[in-house]
Structure formats: structure tokens, C-alpha cells
């Protein structure tokens, strides 16, 4: 039986005063209150220690009340706690003795009751303070790596545990629980192994708190475990786990309630922290994409060339996520008058892709200005890029040289979609086919070079895969066939009409499906000068 010190229930002077009052009712009787260890606490009359010890020895085992006529002893037991004993010696009368220990026991019970209520209140105080403190601490913290340790430290202090851990997924939306805060154990303790591991999995799955009390049979370093979910709405984020070593101090429903309240605050804080991180990441990404797009747009021609005998129309629509398409028109030096036509698609997105695009565009322009033929220009471009490509970014490019007087077109493709050639009056488009490998990956490469002669009213359609791979709601691609079909319908109305026809065709096909890639297209038509 556990011991409750007598002085917690009654003060020495109060006890003495009380014994004095009773002694008036029993003249000649000595009264004493002893503590649980047998020491004298309060007395009336002259007691000898030996005399007291003798009475106690007679009564102590087993603990029982004795009424012997000239002396009596009554153990004082309050709510299963051993408090001490009431002892009397002298000419006793039994009724008086009964009355004495009855009122004393009654009084002690009342005080004990008050104490337990006060303890309950103190417990609430602890809870309020814990929650107040924790809300203040973690509420202002937006670091999901720091919150668990702050919470665990408080939980272990207030709920009093020997070991503790907080487990959360390695990142949001992952299911692999990782220890994010730990207290009181190391690897060799195997705190989270065996039964505990099973318990964690169960709570993580069901979302119901668990108190586990029979771990002493297993190899667990703790005897009792309290495990509650970190839950926000119906979503279980993780687990808080506390363990105690001694079997007697099992976790109570009150401990569970408190830890749940704490877990709820924690879950909110972690959720907020994750949201915050997500938002920062999103903003950074948006900023980067916007910057990438800005670079990209600044590299595209401001307007199409105005050249007698030719019509040009171009469109570039960027996707939110992916960037990297570009096109270019530039007049080459020397005679006859020639125009370089370039369309390309850089892999990757954001700033790295945009910088790579700027780099590639400059190289192609520089080499092209030296007057080389398309295949040679792209092959040289490839060499320079491979030599300097540390970013693992590649590009596809189609480069053509148009003799403005004659309509002769020579071209080569570095793995790019072949443009369409729509000869006047024909209902079928032809591809400007030329074999070739994408640029920036291997060196050397050999590209095929081809040539065609454009007649009056012939039309060319240059595009990137953002056009043919435009997707509808059921993930079908727009495709080469549809492109050819819409491209040929408006050729008689000029370059701009052909361009619009294709744009409209793609729009009708994709409906409201969000565009997932850059959409780049330019149309060249030979017309009367």
C-alpha cells in the first residue's frame, strides 16, 4: 500500500488541537497520531517511544485495528493510502474510542477528497498552460522540421514520459513515416520496434488513439505506451508516441485527452507550415517561370519580315509550365538575297531552358551569318553546344535558307518536326523531310540537306510539337493528319489565314483542355511581288 504523508492532510497544530478537544471527553487517556513510518506526529499526554513502538508492532502485521481495553490502535487508511495510526492508552471507553477514530477518518477522507479535486484542478492548470504555451510557441513557427521537437519536449515534460517520438512522412503526401523528433532513447533501445511498430501502424491507419499497457512481456524498453494521431480534419498527418517505463503509472484517459489536444494543435501547425512551404515553392517557381518566359519572349522576333513577294505570319503561345520554343528570321549577307528561317524547341523549362535557348539562338545566328548551308550550320551548332553543354539540355531545330528571288529553299533538320509544304492547288500537304539528330547530345552528327523549289502561291508551315501534340480532354493528340487537314483549307487566302485556320483547328480540337506545351507556328507564302 502506498503512503500518503499525514502532514498533507492535517497540520500538526490542528491535529494537536483536535486531540486536546477529545482528551477532555476521555479523562486520563493519552492520545497519539503517528505517521505511516511510526514516528509521532501529534500527541496528548506523555508518550514514551518504546510504548508507542510496542503497540505499533502488535498491530502492524497485519494492518488492523485493535481494541484492548486499556489501549487501542486504529490504522488510518484513506483511499487506499496508508496515512498513519491513531493510538490511545488509558481508561478507555469503547464508544468514545469509536467516535474518535470515526470522526478522524471522516475528516481525513474529506481532506483527501478536497486534495484529489485540487489535483484534478492542477492537472487542468497544466493542460491549459501546456496548450497556451504550445500554441504560442508553434503557432508562430513555420518550420515543419522544428515544430515536432518543440511539441515533443513540452509533451514529455507535462505528461511525464520516459521516451517519446513524433513520426511524420518524409514529405507532404507521402506515406513513409519517419521519426521527426525523439526523446529519451537511442537506436539500441528498439523503442519503435516490435509491438510499438505495430501500434504505430494501427493508429496511423485508424486515426484512433491507443493506450497500450502490457509491453513488459515484449522486448520493449517501456511498459506502457500512449499513441495518438496527428490529425487535421479527417487527414492523418502522423503520430505522437509516449512511453513510460514503470507499469504502475499507466497512462490515463486524461493523459490521452491532453495529448490529443496537443496533437490537434500540432497537426494544424504542421499543416500550416507545409502550406507555407508549398506557397513559397510555388512563388519561387512562378517567378522563375515568369523570368524564363520573359527571356524567351525577348528573343523572339518583334514582328514578321516585310518582303515583297512573300507573306509571313507567326504565333507563339507559351504554356505555363513548359517553355523553350523559339523561331527566328534573319537576312543573310551577300547576294542573291536570302532569308534564314529557323524554328527550334529546347528541352526543359524555366530560366535554365531560356538561357540555353538564348545561347543556342546566338550560336546559330552567328554561324548562319558566315553563310554556310543549313546542314553545315546545324552540324557546327551541334559541335559548339556539345562542347559547352553542362546543363543536359538539348534542342531540336529546323533551319532553312530561302532565296527570295527564285523561291529555292534548302533545309536541314536537327531532329525537329518537318514543316509542311502546301503547293498551290493541291489538297495534300508534303513534309519537308530531312533526316537528322537532335542537337546538343552527340558529336559529330551528320544531317541530311534537302531542297525544294517554291512556286507562286506555295505555302510553308513551320511548327513545334506543341501544335501536333496539343491534347484534348481524353488525351488524344492533335496529330500530323489533323494539322495537314486544317492547313490546306485556307491556303488561297494567304499566310495569316492559314495560320488562323490551324490555330482555330487546334482550339476546336482541344476545347478547354489546358495547354501543356509551348505552341509555336509560322507560315510563309510566296505571293506576287
Amino acid at each position, binding site marked *: 500500500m502506498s503512503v500518503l504523508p499525514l502532514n498533507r492532510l492535517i497540520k500538526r497544530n490542528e491535529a494537536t488541537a483536535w486531540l486536546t478537544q477529545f482528551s477532555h471527553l476521555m479523562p486520563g487517556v493519552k492520545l497519539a497520531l503517528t505517521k505511516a513510518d511510526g514516528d509521532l506526529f501529534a500527541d496528548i499526554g506523555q508518550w514514551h517511544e518504546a510504548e508507542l513502538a510496542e503497540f505499533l508492532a502488535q498491530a502492524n502485521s497485519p494492518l488492523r485495528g485493535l481494541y484492548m481495553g486499556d489501549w487501542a490502535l486504529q490504522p488510518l487508511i484513506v483511499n487506499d493510502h496508508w496515512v498513519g495510526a491513531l493510538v490511545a492508552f488509558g481508561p478507555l471507553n469503547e464508544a468514545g474510542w469509536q467516535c474518535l477514530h470515526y470522526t478522524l477518518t471522516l475528516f481525513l477522507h474529506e481532506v483527501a477528497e478536497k*486534495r484529489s479535486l485540487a489535483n484534478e*484542478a*492542477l492537472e487542468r492548470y497544466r493542460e491549459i*498552460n501546456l496548450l*497556451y*504555451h504550445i500554441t504560442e510557441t508553434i503557432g508562430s513557427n513555420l518550420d515543419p522540421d522544428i515544430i515536432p521537437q518543440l511539441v515533443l519536449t513540452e509533451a514529455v515534460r507535462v505528461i511525464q514520459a520516459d521516451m517519446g517520438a513524433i513520426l511524420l512522412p518524409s514529405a507532404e503526401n507521402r506515406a513513409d513515416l519517419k521519426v521527426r523528433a525523439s526523446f529519451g532513447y537511442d537506436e539500441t533501445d528498439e523503442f519503435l520496434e516490435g509491438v510499438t511498430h505495430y501500434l504505430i501502424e494501427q493508429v496511423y491507419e485508424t486515426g484512433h488513439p491507443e493506450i497500450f499497457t502490457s509491453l513488459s512481456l515484449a522486448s520493449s524498453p517501456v511498459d506502457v505506451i500512449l499513441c495518438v494521431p496527428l490529425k487535421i480534419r479527417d487527414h492523418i498527418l502522423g503520430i505522437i508516441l509516449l512511453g513510460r517505463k514503470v507499469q504502475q503509472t499507466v497512462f490515463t484517459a486524461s493523459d490521452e485527452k491532453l495529448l490529443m489536444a496537443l496533437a490537434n494543435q500540432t497537426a494544424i501547425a504542421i499543416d500550416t507550415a507545409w502550406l507555407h512551404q508549398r506557397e513559397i515553392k510555388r512563388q519561387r517557381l512562378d517567378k522563375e517561370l515568369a523570368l524564363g518566359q520573359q527571356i524567351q519572349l525577348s528573343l523572339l522576333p518583334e514582328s514578321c519580315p516585310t518582303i515583297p513577294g512573300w507573306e509571313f505570319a507567326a504565333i507563339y503561345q507559351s504554356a505555363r509550365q513548359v517553355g523553350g520554343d523559339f523561331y527566328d528570321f534573319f537576312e543573310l549577307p551577300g547576294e542573291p538575297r536570302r532569308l534564314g528561317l529557323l524554328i527550334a524547341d529546347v528541352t526543359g523549362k524555366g530560366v535554365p531552358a531560356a538561357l540555353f535557348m538564348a545561347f543556342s539562338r546566338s550560336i546559330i545566328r552567328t554561324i548562319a551569318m558566315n553563310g554556310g548551308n543549313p546542314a553545315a550550320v546545324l552540324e557546327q551548332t551541334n559541335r559548339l553546344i556539345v562542347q559547352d553543354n553542362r546543363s543536359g539540355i538539348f534542342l531540336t531545330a529546323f533551319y532553312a535558307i530561302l532565296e527570295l528571288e527564285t523561291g529555292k529553299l534548302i533545309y536541314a533538320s536537327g531532329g525537329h518536326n518537318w514543316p509542311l509544304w502546301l503547293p498551290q492547288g493541291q489538297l495534300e500537304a508534303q513534309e519537308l523531310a530531312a533526316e537528322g539528330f537532335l542537337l546538343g547530345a552527340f558529336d559529330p552528327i551528320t544531317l541530311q540537306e534537302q531542297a525544294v523549289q517554291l512556286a507562286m502561291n506555295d505555302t510553308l508551315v513551320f511548327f513545334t510539337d506543341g501544335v501536333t501534340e496539343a491534347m484534348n480532354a481524353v488525351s488524344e493528340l492533335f496529330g500530323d493528319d489533323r494539322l495537314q487537314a486544317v492547313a490546306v483549307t485556307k491556303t488561297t487566302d494567304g499566310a495569316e489565314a492559314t495560320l488562323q485556320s490551324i490555330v482555330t483547328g487546334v482550339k476546336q480540337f482541344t476545347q478547354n483542355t489546358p495547354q501543356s506545351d509551348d505552341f509555336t507556328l509560322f507560315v510563309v507564302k510566296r505571293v506576287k511581288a
Partner: protein
Amino acid sequence: MERKILIVDDESHIRLLIEQTLEELEDDGVLLFTASNGAEALEIIEAEKPDLIFLDVMMPKVNGFDVCRIVKHELKLQDIYIVMLTAKGQEFDKQKGQEVGADIYMTKPFDPDELYEKAVEILGLG
């Protein structure tokens, strides 16, 4: 030397709670006294000269500030450490506390562990 702590609060449950929080100190020979108003507190202070007082601010008639002022300025008992107790949400008048010579203040509902540790620290126990 015997250490003495006086708990002053007009609310009996607060007295009881503080007493119960500090009762373990009795095992180290610390004596706990309680008073339910300022006048009673001053009587005990003069008679017992406690080392530490937990003193509620809001009490009828003689309030905590008055008691503190009398102790520190009139009775010149500068060595008595006075912890003012104030309700949470109630802005403690720090300037007034300083004027009357209060040593520190704590808010109610107090954290039992914190209160206990404070008492141990102030009395130099533990």
C-alpha cells in the same frame, strides 16, 4: 534555517492549489502559511517573517500592491521575496509593481511546475 512561504489569495481554491503545488517542499522543512486577505497576510508577515510570498494582486480592501508596499517600504522587509499573482488576460501594471517593490509576477492560471520550480529557485533549495 527554517524556510517559510506565505500564500495570499482571497480565493480559497487558489490558496489550496498553490499549497498543494508546494506541499512537497514541506518535506524539506519548508513551512507553508496561507492568508485570505491583506490584513491577515500582514499579521502573518510580521509574526513569521516569511522568505517568500505568493501575493494575489486583486483582493478586496487591502490589495496585493498595498501589502507589497507596506512590506517593502513601511516594514522595510526588503529580503522577503514577493511574487505577485495576476490573472491571465489582465495586464499587469508593471510600473506599479516596480514602485511597490514586487520582485516578479506570474499569471494565473499558473503553471504548477513553473511555480514549484520558482519557489525552489528563490529559496535556494533543490
